[in-house]
């Protein structure tokens, strides 16, 4: 069962509809028992990291998410969900986040060439961590061409402490930021997978087929 975590983070229906488009049924829930029983967990996010964390804590979901991740089952964070898996965020002042991956977040510097928020379609470039010489290898990005465009809407971006956790980079504001993160059974995308057309749907489908395990050295 695919579960979309409901923590009052805005529109979760779009994620559910995108999953339905790739033939996958899902439930939207904040019930700890349902989340624990999921075999795939999608953690979307809309809004600010600070208020999202506040809501998660108010609903007592933080230990539930951590317990799920500890089982090794696949976990996908989307947008703000890609930021609050980090140790901390600078949005809404410094907020302690879930700490599933080491590192924090940063904000884009606005300029006439790079308006903030970063909104629209931008390309992703796979890192060596995601690909071998034969194309994308991480299960999440299988079949997705390097340089594909995805739809972004955000002012903050994750800054993982370990570059091994960066699966893809995107250029904005004159420098690259991490647009896909991955470590073990945890994966996260800064873009809106559910609004990213063909390749967004392909990524969702890959996630649904993934068992959370990685080949070889345990990374890729």
């Amino acid at each position, binding site marked *: 069962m695919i579960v979309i975590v409901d923590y009052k983070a*805005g*529109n979760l*229906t*779009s994620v559910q*509809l*995108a999953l*339905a*488009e790739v033939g996958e049924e899902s439930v939207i829930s904040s019930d700890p028992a349902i989340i624990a029983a999921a075999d795939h967990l999608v953690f979307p996010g*809309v*809004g600010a990291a600070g208020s999202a964390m506040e809501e998660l804590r108010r609903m007592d979901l933080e230990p539930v998410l951590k317990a799920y991740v500890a089982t090794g089952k696949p976990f996908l964070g989307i947008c703000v969900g890609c930021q609050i898996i980090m140790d901390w965020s600078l949005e809404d002042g410094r907020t302690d986040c879930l700490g599933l991956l080491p590192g924090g977040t940063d904000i884009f510097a*606005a300029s*006439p060439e*790079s*308006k903030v*928020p*970063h*909104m*629209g*379609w*931008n*390309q992703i470039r796979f890192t060596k961590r995601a690909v071998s010489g034969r194309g994308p290898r991480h299960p999440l990005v299988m079949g997705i061409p390097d340089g*594909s*465009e995805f*739809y972004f*809407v955000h002012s903050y971006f994750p800054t993982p402490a370990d570059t091994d956790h960066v699966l893809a980079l995107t*250029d*904005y504001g004159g420098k690259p930021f991490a647009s896909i993160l991955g470590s073990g059974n945890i994966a996260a995308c800064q873009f*809106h997978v*559910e*609004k*990213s*057309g*063909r*390749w*967004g*749907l392909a990524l969702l489908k890959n996630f649904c087929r993934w068992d959370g395990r990685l080949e070889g050295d345990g990374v890729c």
Partner: protein
Amino acid sequence: MLTKRLIVCLDVRNGKVTKGVKFKENVDLGDPVEMGRKYYLDGVDELVFYDIMASAEKRPIDIAMVRAVARKVFIPFSVGGGIRNLDDMREVLLAGAEKVSVNSLAVQNPDIISQGARAFGKQCIVLGMDAKKTGLPGLPSGYEVFVQGGRKAMGIDAIEWAKKAVALGAGEICVNSIDADGTKDGYELTLTRLIAEAVDVPVIASGGAGTPSHLVDVFNKGKADAGLVASMVHYGTYTIPAIKADLSAAGIPIRAAV
């Protein structure tokens, strides 16, 4: 690199996509959900649905249509026309729209922009603006804001209004030139550029697109972030992949059509 966006606009009247010239002489073109799905599959970057009669008929937006679109289209889409208050915005966003567009409502009640931005985030709030060069004395730019589908002049300067709307929290401005609308003679480049240079949010140019070269001009000379098209694709004159191929050949960064 962030790409320029190609947006298709679907004006909806009585449940059908319609197209007029200079806001008049409308003809029905098809089902909005099916047409939206087709453009999505063709690789368009974003869609806009305007319920063009909702305001005039004083009824809420067709929320069933918004829900139906969300089930078929997996790119961002915005919805406008008939938004009366914060509750209407919420309903449209929860139905699956990425953004809501306010036009006449925002002119009458600018606070709706800041209320919407606070409640849902700036990126959800698009200010739609219909403007026309009237040269009315007292307007610094000579471009005047109109409401009610271009029928009523407001005596407000278009550039000043754009700046004010952004200060209130508009995350994007869609500038529609009443003079250029439906002419297929090209966008109003001066109006678009004046607004793009005056604000620090993305500007969508609307009205007048007839060929891919008009889009090239509005990106290069009009400094637009996105271009809205309607008749040039609705009547089959151009396809989305063909327009994108031309833009790409002209050096405009654009998402590959798939």
